[in-house]
């Protein structure tokens, strides 16, 4: 592997990592603040992608579709939280996994009813359809760069929101001490509903913004779900910083695994996870209990 190829692979790994971070951040937020394992997170991602496909068809522009789609995702997240998740706060993880597994089945079938079983592409907005030449044969699409920038923006936005806003304060407090928050007269139920809706919206947003490069098809949420969990667990459950580092590690490990260890490529990320949990049983940035 010459240096140019190496750098290109690093670029690919980092970009994949950014995409993973976007999905995993919502997952870790819900995990960390509410203590809920939401395996329907991948389904939210899928719904986002389908919304992008559908709304782009209606309004003719992906960006507009995203603007319209996010409130829809928030609404879906809110409804799910109120109807189902709210019964899980005092239940064991086991039941959370199960109930959200049931949600996956329902969302997958609902997707089938609403949008059918075909697969669809979503056009890259014209303004971003160009590419940057990397070598004489290889170019790098503007849209991928755009996604990376957006992901960085989201990461920065989350940092600010969590550290500098009142909601962020409540979220931080809720994560560390639920009783105390309740004692302070804050409606923890409301905080949870907001967090869950935001998490769902983040997943949906990832699906929407990723739709032009992932394409849109049934069952697309299942594939991203497991790898997102790996990211979250490596980083330490509940840690946004951990999710970011985990996403980068997985993105790079997966990319280089494919090239250097083609025989074992898909095992690489799981092996990495096992190794990390062996040395850091709470993930890299997890809090010890």
């Amino acid at each position: 592997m010459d240096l140019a190829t190496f750098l290109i692979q690093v670029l690919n790994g980092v970009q994949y990592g950014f995409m993973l971070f976007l999905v995993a951040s919502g997952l870790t937020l819900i995990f960390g603040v509410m203590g809920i394992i939401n395996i329907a997170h991948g389904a939210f991602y899928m719904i986002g992608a389908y919304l992008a496909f559908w709304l782009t068809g209606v309004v003719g522009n992906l960006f507009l579709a995203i603007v319209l789609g996010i409130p829809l995702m928030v609404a879906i997240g809110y409804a799910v939280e109120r109807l189902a998740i709210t019964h899980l706060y005092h239940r064991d993880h086991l039941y959370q996994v199960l109930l959200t597994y049931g949600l996956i089945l329902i969302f997958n079938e609902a997707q089938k009813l609403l949008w059918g079983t075909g697969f669809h592409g979503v056009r890259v907005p014209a303004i971003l359809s160009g590419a940057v030449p990397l070598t004489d044969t290889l170019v790098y699409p503007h849209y991928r760069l755009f996604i990376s920038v957006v992901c960085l923006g989201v990461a920065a936005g989350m940092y600010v929101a969590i550290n500098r806003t009142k909601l962020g304060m409540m979220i931080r407090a809720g994560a560390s001490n639920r009783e105390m928050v309740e004692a302070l007269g804050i409606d923890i139920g409301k905080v949870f509903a907001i967090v869950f809706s935001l998490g769902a919206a983040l997943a949906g947003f990832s699906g929407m913004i990723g739709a032009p490069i992932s394409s849109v098809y049934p069952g697309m949420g299942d594939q991203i779900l497991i790898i997102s969990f790996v990211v979250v667990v490596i980083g330490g459950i509940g840690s946004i910083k951990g999710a970011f580092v985990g996403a980068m590690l997985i993105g790079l490990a997966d990319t280089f695994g494919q090239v250097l260890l083609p025989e074992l490529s898909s095992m690489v990320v799981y092996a990495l996870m096992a190794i990390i949990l062996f040395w850091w049983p709470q993930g890299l940035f997890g809090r010890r209990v």
Partner: protein
Amino acid sequence: MPKKQNSTTTRRRFLVGTAATTGLAVAGGVLPTRFAIGAMAPIKIGILLPYSGTYAALGNAITDALKLRIEQAGGKLGGRDVEYVAINSEMSVPKAPTNTEKLIKKDEVDFLVGPVHSGIAAVMAKIVGKRTAPIMIVPNAGSNAVTGPLCGKNIFRTSFSNWQPAYPGGELMAKEGHKTAVTISWKYGAGIQMMGAGKEAFEKNGGKVVQEILIPFPQVEFQAHLAEIAALKPDAVFAFYSGGGATKFLQDYAAAGLKDNIPLYGPGFLTEGVTKAAGAAAEGIKTTLHYADTLDTDANRNFRSAYQAVAGRGADVFAVQGYDTGSLLLQAAAAVGGDVSASADVIKAMEQATFPDSPRGDWHMSKAHNPIQDIYLRQVVNGEQKLLGVAAKQLEDPATGCKLV
């Protein structure tokens, strides 16, 4: 879809009867009973296809076209009504044995149509191959093994073997003057077999495959391998993906700028039914397949308009395979006047079936029960599969390992 609420109760009564008269049944009392039922009861067609997940579109296309063909012939098989018992395979191989056994033993279907997935095909073939009934018809899964080592008297295929559409593709690549190539596909039966056939043909015709990339199924992250291809700079790339994977591969391949520098070839599935989703990324790609949308025959035009009318979407190769499955069933049932229990005669009729009205052009069964068919050369032009000619005339699968040959 006709479901079988009534048959369940019938079956329960039948069970009680069996328990009471086991001796009688063993003595052969079952046969006349069966014929008596056979005269009036519908012919049962068990269908095991995916109706959810990534390949749901294939399952729907096959089912719709199969029913269309039988409806066109009056909705009866050999004068008997038809009852469909469809199970969603969910593309799950672990569930395949149960689903297959259920269709055979519980629903006692006369014909078993399915599947899409090669792994499930192998499971089904293994179960069906041990028995004399029902007769299995594979409307898609291309695993060479189904009409190779696993072939059987009562196992037919109306689609293709993985070898068939891939081999001419490899030839084409060499004929167009390419000396080196990289093959890329998923690491599973179909991918391995198609890449193998393409490589075989390419190297027989003077080419050299410099790298074989197999990505774990069903992963769709291609970036790392595209960079690898860009670094290798082969003359051409030979690829097999299908469905959502194909869309994504084509898009990523184009977006990485490779499409303009390194031409892409492959079995027709690469561009089949994905041109709309892939858009410009699919333009100009040449593939080989046993069907092309724009085949200029009455049979094809009629089929396409009829299918569009009932299904509400354009026909693709999967629909064609479903349609021909219907034709095969019609001929088989007609030959025995609807008494499909006489399986030797049914099999004979199926072996001799002809398909003059097939949208893909006439074809017939090989000794291994796989289509001997034309493979077309197509190119995506303005989002449509443009027919460039016949890549291989009446191509027959080598059927390696089949004891029927």
